[in-house]
C-alpha cells in the first residue's frame, strides 16, 4: 500500500502518470558529418526543454525518452527510457562513410515496443525519424524493417513523423514510414531550420499521443507550422 503526502492510504504500489514513449531515430550516416550533426545535436538539446514544459502543462502523460542512432547498423544512443525532465543530451556522432540503413533501425525500435516490453497502460508511442538522405538499405530491407514495426500493435498505433534535412531527403520512403498521406514530411531546408522542425514535430507528436490521433488536426498543425515550399523553379527568378 502507499501513503500519499495528503495521508491518503491507497491499495497498491503507488500511482504515476501514463508513460508516453518518445523515440528519436537519428541518421548518423557519413553525410551528416559537420554542420548537420552539430545542428541536429543542438536541435535535440533545444527540443527537450519544450517537451519538459509540455509535460508539465498537460495532465496525463509522462514522457520517457529514447534515441537510436543509425547508419550502416543501428545502435541505441539512449536505450533505457529516461524521464525527459532528467535527460541531459549527449551529442550524437556521425559514422565515417556510414550509410543510411533505416530498416534495421525500425526493427530495433520494434523490439522495444513489443507487448512484453511496453507497459499495458502506455499511451501511443511517438516516433520521430530524422534523416538527410534516402534509405540505402539492401533491396527489401527497408520494407521488411518497417513491416516488423507495423506488425506490432504499438508500432501500428504509434504517432510517426519524419524530419528531412534538405529537400532531397523528402522521399517516398519517409511517407511510407509516416503511413498517412495527409501528414507531411517536415523539411528543414537549412541546418538553421532543424531546431524549428524538431520543436514542431516533438510537440505535435506528444500532443497527439496524449489526446489521441486526429490525423486531420495533426496535418493541419504541421502544415501551419512548416508549410511546404514550392519546388525550386527551373529559372532562378532573382536573376531574371
Amino acid at each position: 500500500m502507499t501513503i500519499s503526502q495528503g495521508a491518503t492510504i491507497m491499495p497498491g504500489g503507488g500511482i504515476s502518470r501514463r508513460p508516453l514513449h518518445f523515440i528519436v531515430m537519428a541518421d548518423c550516416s557519413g553525410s551528416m558529418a559537420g554542420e548537420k550533426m552539430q545542428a541536429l545535436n543542438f536541435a535535440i538539446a533545444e527540443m527537450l526543454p519544450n517537451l519538459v514544459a509540455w509535460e508539465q502543462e498537460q495532465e496525463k502523460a509522462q514522457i520517457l525518452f529514447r534515441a537510436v542512432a543509425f547508419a550502416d547498423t543501428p545502435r541505441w544512443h539512449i536505450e533505457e527510457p529516461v524521464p525527459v525532465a532528467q535527460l541531459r543530451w549527449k551529442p550524437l556522432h556521425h559514422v565515417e562513410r556510414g550509410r543510411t540503413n533505416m530498416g534495421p533501425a525500425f526493427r530495433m525500435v520494434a523490439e522495444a515496443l513489443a507487448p512484453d516490453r511496453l507497459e499495458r497502460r502506455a499511451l501511443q508511442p511517438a516516433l520521430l525519424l530524422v534523416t538527410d538522405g534516402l534509405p540505402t538499405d539492401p533491396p527489401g530491407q527497408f520494407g521488411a524493417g518497417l513491416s516488423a514495426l507495423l506488425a506490432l500493435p504499438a508500432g501500428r498505433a504509434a504517432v510517426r513523423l519524419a524530419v528531412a534535412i534538405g529537400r532531397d531527403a523528402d522521399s517516398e520512403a519517409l511517407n511510407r514510414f509516416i503511413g498517412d498521406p495527409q501528414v507531411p514530411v517536415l523539411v528543414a531546408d537549412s541546418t538553421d531550420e532543424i531546431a524549428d522542425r524538431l520543436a514542431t514535430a516533438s510537440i505535435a507528436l506528444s500532443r497527439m499521443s496524449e489526446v489521441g490521433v486526429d490525423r486531420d488536426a495533426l496535418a493541419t498543425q504541421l502544415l501551419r507550422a512548416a508549410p511546404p515550399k514550392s519546388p525550386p523553379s527551373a529559372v532562378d527568378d532573382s536573376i531574371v
Partner: protein
Amino acid sequence: MDWHLFTASIQGTAHRAAALPNQDAVGSRGDPAQAGGAPLAVAVADGHGDPRHFRSGRGSQLAVDVACELGCEVLAGMGGAAGPDPVRAQLAQRLLPGIVHGWRAAVAEDLDHRPFSAEELRHRHPGDDAVVAYGTTLLLAVFIGRWLAVAQIGDGDMLLVEAGGRVAVPVPPDPSLHGRFTTSLCQDDALAHFRVGALDLDQAPAEVLLLATDGFGNAQATEPWQPGVGADLLAFVRDRGIDWMGEQLPSWAARCASAEGSGDDTTLALLVRSAPPLRP
C-alpha cells in the same frame, strides 16, 4: 450472501482541462444484502473521450442503467443453477443480446428527446451511426445465490479477492486492448467483444470485488498491479474494516483521476462481503 457496496466517480483532471465532463457512470440494482435470494447487479462504464463520441457520458449512464436492470431480470432464476455452464449460457444467449439491444433502444429514445445539435454534428464522422456518439465500455457483475456472473466490453478492470488471499481477474483478457484503443458497446459487432465469466462463490469465496474504469488501472505505477492492490484490499478489510474502506474510496478515485495519476475519469464500485472479523 451479504455485501457492502461503495461507489465513487471522479472527473479526471485531463477532462477538466479539456472542458469535458465526467463521462463515466456507475450504478446498481437490487439489495446488497440479497434478502430472499434476490439478485444484485453492479456496473461501471466509461464513455469514450474522443470528440467523435460526443454523447458518451450519456451513453455510459444508459449502459449502466440497462445492464443493471436486465442483469437482475434475466438472471433472477439462476440462483439454483447446478453449475457455471447454465449461468454462462444465460449470460451469453439472453443477457448480453438484451443489453446491446436495450442500450441501442435507450440511445434511440434519448435521441428522440434531444436530437443532435449543430455543434454536436460537427464532431460526427461521415457514415457514423448515431450510437457511435454514445460509445462506451461496460463492466457488469451480477450476484445471484452462490453465483457471480460477470461481463465486460472494452477496457477497465475487475478484480476478485478471495478470503484465502487469491487475487483473480474474473473475465478473460482481451489482447486487442492496448494504448488508447478499446472495444465498445457502439460497435456493430459488440456482442462478439464481450468477455464473460461465471464463478461459484461456494468454491471460491470472494471477499472483495472491485470494478474500475481504466482511470484506475492506468494510474497504477506497478505492473502488474492487480496482485498488490488485491492483497492490500483484503488487508484493509481485516485491519481497518469495511466502513473505513467506504470512506476512503472517493479519495482513491480522486488520486487516480489527478495529474499525479492517469488524469482520466475514474470510477470505482467496491463490494465487500459483510462481517469479516477485524484483526485484534
